[in-house]
């Protein structure tokens, strides 16, 4: 309590209770010289209270901002750099909380706070201060209700602060919290004291105070002592003003209006305008659901920088000024604050994961459906609703739409989406998965019903030889996709080949048209045997022809055979043993295999082990087939000819030593070889070895054109195998593949939305794929039970997906609304992104407390027009807005908030209190400052007055 007794006395004089002052004064005398002496003899509880406050303040002061941070000062939510520490004290059975607010950088720019800094604390803004102290009772409302108690409390704090010679302003809330009323005091060194007062009128604001002129006069009245005619007398008052406008909600009505305006102003926006149905009609997800527009609107803040006003006339003129004249425009985003769970892909994927978890409960998909038929069997089951058959039929019809052509796998979606083992977007299974997400509430029973019908429909296509929709009937099977997709692809190919076989058969019987890959020549020469055979018999044809093998293998009669199955002459290559051109045969396409078939084969090979000479049967079959076809196309060919065509590297031509070795003969050689028949050369050593496997196969291969060979891929058999797979698929196998595919397809879908150039968004989406890939990977391992850890991971993945989806919705919405100010939409998204990312949780349970996003973004001059256009003049049905009582209208909209700061600066002439230093005497200080904030029916005024007592 040992402090400068001067100020101590002065403030004690302010305190309401004279007795305490006396008591304290006496004690002070005794303590002289002992700085931190805790006196336990303090008589009254009031004194103890003051001393308690004092000790807390001393502690905070000695700690300084840095140490307070270490000790756990809290960063305020809605401010960038304001921290707060709290302490509790008790007085007369009431407990009070003391809060000290400070900024970490206060030492740097301790001067005047920037006038319109957006992240200022309310009190900072009201009174133009930096750090401050607030003391309030810990009641429900947190406010001292009666004025005497408030001023007593303030005195206590003031005494304590002056005792520790602190210059912190201190505040005490008064009255009802809704009034936001405060009183406060600050000692400004030795001479001046500042007093603060703030209050608010919630309704029925006097008309005078609705206008700038009246507000000016209110301010002037605080220091004009006489009742002079204020309009005549001039004071040099500084004024700064900030107006906030708010766009109307982006509802249908508004959008129509807005769009119409946009169309008028820019014809090239036709693609972006809607007919007022849904904001996201042109977004990629709208096929599946319509998202609530996350952007409710924008707030436009126009700021007038400080200027001097000398009369109320000037103020009245200012009220007519258009917001366009304001020095600075800023924009802030108003977001849909709804906390209830959003419907989107993420929510449905979550349900699908639940279905996956349940899928392990049964062995067969039918089990889930039959449980549906006797609902008594399981209570839980009965909650799983199956949509009505009409809904089901509609979905199936859409899935199997005949004209639904599948574009191309590879181009759709991000390249990285291949990392997720699912079906490509737009493919049959991917569409099935997306439909399932929105089929009923995506429960296991609904999915089972849909799947069974789906498989039934696929079988129908197979049996009726109808092409499978949304699946390419050619190409090679992409092993990076999920097995169901591979199987369906296989089926589509088998279907196509099956149809071809039928066509071939019909062609042979006597049609003219010939469209398949086999050549005209071949079908003409096609032998009679073929015509008699039905296609299915054809597959076992090889066995029938076995007897021919012997004939064919000894070359004697071969020249008598007609050439069959030739695809044309090979570039000027001549046969070795007869002066004939070499014909390339049609060969069979290598057999297609789905992943599980590969796996089987590889395991077989592995099982047979390391023996070097073990070569896979499949390749031998292909080689045999090629040799047979070659023999048929070149009846006079010998093994060497085949090698020259099939494995040119194994033929060493003699005449050109340069190209010997493993290089294939170049054009020069070929020409030469044509000129000088027979071509000279020899097989490579490895091919001419005795007992060479190739020659053995050659010797055994019959001369058969590809069309008559046993197909390497039997479409009927393989097709049936696919259907068998689909029909006996276990529930969890289905669900595992569905989950992967649904995630991939959903990600591919949302990523097609246009949102302008937003690098973070792009990165986010690109990051999503590897995240999905790693979380979904465990699903590729066959398991027999739900592994809870995997399910947890998948649920976490849903949360991640939800965040990305949400960000994307915001990005898309912003892009649409600010399409003509791309920089602005980018910057706003950027702010939102930085605000959102650290706040989003990845956990399953913790609810992220959503703080209002209120970051402002400055608008450049060239973007003002875009913004101004968003303020469509109010229409008739918005007539409630027509009671306009404030000025500064923007396109007929009045501001939703007007904030004004008046200030009066005085050069303080030397006065007799300032005995200590001369410099203080010439200081230019802000003597009066008034902050006014409000609308036409809500007014808040805060006044701070500096004076020397």
């Amino acid at each position, binding site marked *: 309590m040992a402090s400068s007794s001067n100020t101590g006395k002065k403030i004690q004089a302010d305190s309401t209770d004279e007795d305490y002052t006396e008591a304290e004064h006496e004690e002070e005398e005794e303590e002289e010289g002992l700085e931190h002496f805790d006196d336990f003899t303090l008589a009254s509880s009031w004194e103890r209270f003051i001393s308690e406050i004092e000790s807390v303040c001393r502690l905070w002061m000695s700690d300084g901002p840095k140490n307070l941070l270490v000790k756990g000062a809290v960063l305020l939510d809605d401010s960038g750099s304001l921290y707060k520490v709290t302490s509790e004290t008790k007085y007369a059975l009431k407990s009070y909380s003391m809060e000290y607010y400070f900024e970490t950088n206060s030492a740097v720019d301790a001067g005047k706070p920037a006038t319109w800094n957006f992240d200022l604390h309310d009190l900072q803004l009201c009174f133009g201060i930096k750090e401050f102290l607030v003391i309030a009772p810990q009641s429900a409302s947190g406010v001292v209700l009666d004025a005497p108690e408030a001023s007593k409390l303030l005195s206590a704090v003031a005494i304590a602060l002056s005792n520790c010679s602190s210059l912190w302003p201190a505040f005490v809330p008064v009255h009802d919290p809704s009034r936001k009323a405060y009183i406060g005091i600050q000692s400004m060194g030795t001479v001046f004291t500042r007093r603060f007062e703030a209050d608010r009128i919630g309704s029925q604001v006097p008309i005078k105070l609705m206008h700038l002129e009246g507000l000016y006069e209110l301010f002037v009245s605080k220091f004009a002592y006489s009742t002079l005619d204020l309009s005549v007398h001039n004071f040099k008052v500084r004024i700064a003003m900030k107006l906030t406008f708010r766009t109307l909600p982006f509802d249908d009505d508004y959008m129509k209006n807005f769009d119409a305006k946009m169309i008028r102003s820019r014809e090239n926006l036709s693609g972006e305008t809607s007919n007022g149905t849904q904001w996201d009609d042109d977004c990629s997800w709208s096929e599946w659901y319509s998202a609530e527009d996350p952007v409710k609107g924008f707030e436009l803040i126009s700021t007038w920088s400080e200027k001097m006003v000398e009369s109320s006339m000037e103020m009245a003129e200012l009220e007519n000024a258009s917001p366009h004249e304001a020095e600075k425009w800023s924009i802030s985003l108003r977001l849909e604050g709804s906390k209830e769970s959003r419907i989107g892909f993420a929510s449905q994927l979550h349900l699908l994961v639940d279905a996956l978890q349940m899928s392990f409960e049964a062995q067969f998909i039918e089990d889930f459906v039959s449980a549906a038929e006797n609902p008594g069997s399981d209570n839980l089951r009965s909650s799983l609703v199956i949509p009505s058959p009409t809904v089901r039929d509609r979905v199936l019809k859409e899935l199997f739409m005949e004209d639904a052509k599948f574009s191309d796998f590879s181009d759709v979606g991000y390249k990285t989406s291949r*990392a997720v*083992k699912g079906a490509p977007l737009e493919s049959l299974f991917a569409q099935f998965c997306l439909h399932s997400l929105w089929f009923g509430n995506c429960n296991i029973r609904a999915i089972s019903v849909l799947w069974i019908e789906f498989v039934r429909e696929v079988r129908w296509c197979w049996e009726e030889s109808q092409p499978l929709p949304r699946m390419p009937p050619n190409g*090679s099977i992409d*092993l990076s996709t*999920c*097995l169901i997709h591979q199987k369906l692809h296989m089926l589509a190919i088998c279907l196509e080949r099956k149809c071809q076989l039928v066509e071939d058969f019909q062609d042979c019987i006597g049609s003219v048209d010939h469209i398949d890959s086999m050549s005209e020549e071949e079908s003409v020469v096609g032998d009679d045997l073929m015509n008699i055979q039905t296609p299915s018999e054809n597959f076992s044809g090889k066995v029938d022809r076995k007897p021919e093998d012997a004939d064919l293998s000894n070359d004697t009669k071969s020249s008598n055979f007609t050439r069959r199955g030739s695809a044309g002459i090979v570039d000027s290559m001549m046969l070795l043993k007869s002066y004939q051109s070499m014909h390339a045969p049609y060969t069979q396409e*290598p057999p297609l*295999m789905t*992943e*599980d078939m590969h*796996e089987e*084969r*590889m395991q077989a*090979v*592995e099982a047979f082990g*390391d023996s*070097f000479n*073990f*070569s*896979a049967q*499949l*390749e*031998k079959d*292909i*080689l045999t087939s*090629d040799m047979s076809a070659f023999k048929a196309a070149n009846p006079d060919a010998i093994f060497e000819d085949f090698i020259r065509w*099939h*494995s040119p*590297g*194994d033929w060493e031509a003699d005449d050109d030593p340069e190209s010997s*070795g*493993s*290089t*294939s003969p170049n054009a020069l050689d070929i020409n030469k070889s044509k000129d000088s028949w027979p071509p000279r050369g020899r097989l490579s*050593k*490895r091919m001419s*070895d005795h007992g*060479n*496997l*190739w020659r053995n196969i050659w010797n055994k291969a019959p001369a058969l054109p590809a069309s008559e060979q046993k197909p390497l891929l039997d479409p009927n058999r393989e097709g049936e195998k696919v259907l068998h797979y689909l029909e006996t698929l276990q529930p969890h196998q289905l669900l595992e593949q569905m989950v992967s595919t649904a995630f991939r397809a959903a990600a591919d879908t949302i990523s097609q939305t246009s949102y302008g150039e937003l690098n973070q968004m792009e990165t*986010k989406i690109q*990051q999503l794929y*590897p*995240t999905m*890939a*790693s*979380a979904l*990977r*465990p699903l*590729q*391992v*066959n398991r027999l039970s739900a592994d809870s*850890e995997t399910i947890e*991971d998948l649920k*976490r*993945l849903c949360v*991640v997906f939800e*965040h990305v989806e949400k960000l994307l919705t915001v990005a898309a919405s912003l892009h649409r609304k600010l399409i003509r100010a791309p920089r602005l939409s980018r910057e706003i998204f950027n702010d939102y992104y930085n605000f959102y*990312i650290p706040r989003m949780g*990845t956990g399953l349970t913790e609810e992220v407390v959503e703080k209002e996003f209120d970051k402002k973004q400055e608008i450049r001059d060239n973007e003002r027009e875009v913004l101004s256009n968003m303020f469509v003049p109010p229409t008739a049905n918005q007539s409630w807005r027509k009671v306009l009582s404030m000025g500064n209208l923007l396109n007929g909209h009045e501001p939703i908030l007007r904030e004004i700061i008046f200030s009066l600066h005085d050069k303080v002439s030397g006065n007799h209190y300032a005995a200590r230093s001369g410099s203080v005497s010439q200081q230019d200080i802000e003597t009066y400052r008034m902050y006014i904030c409000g609308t036409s029916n809500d007014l808040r005024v805060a006044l701070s007055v500096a004076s020397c007592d």
Partner: protein
Amino acid sequence: MATIGHNNLNAKLVLLGDMGAGKSSLVLRFVKGQFLEFQESTIGAAFFSQTLAVNDATVKFEIWDTAGQERYHSLAPMYYRGAAAAIIVYDITSSDSFSRAKKWVQELQKQGNPNMVMALTGNKADLEDKRKVTAEEARVYAEENGLFFMETSAKSAANVNEVFYEIAKRLPRAQPAQSPAGMVLVDRPAEGSSAASCCS
């Protein structure tokens, strides 16, 4: 794919390259220490396995030696699917085989597992007098494409083991490979909570 056990690693390795580049000879040299002057042309693919000790771990290579003939190209994806490593072999005496090797590299970059360890190997280094592809040219190409490069000779055994050792050394550093299939029977150590790491 590379499967990590306790200090054991199972890695699928595939050899790709033009016919006659010496893929089978390389494997035979590595696995059996033999060299046949006239190695029979591979039909289809052959399977070998060989275990290497690298530092304190052992790497068991499951080696798939493929056929070089163009005809079998369409079957190659099945062999490199899920492979943890690939050796792309060309013959230094044939520039054709080098351009074919480049095509393989492209295909693997596009279709293969992104974490695959790829080695470019110029074989038949003993035939220096017939050289058509300079080591420099190949090294530059390898560096541009993130491969490691060595010239080998299956005949003299030069660098053969080194190639496989180098791959083995690089494997553990590589991430566990992208799991290839729904049919993988080996258990993979759980990655646990790292799954949802994209947003952390």
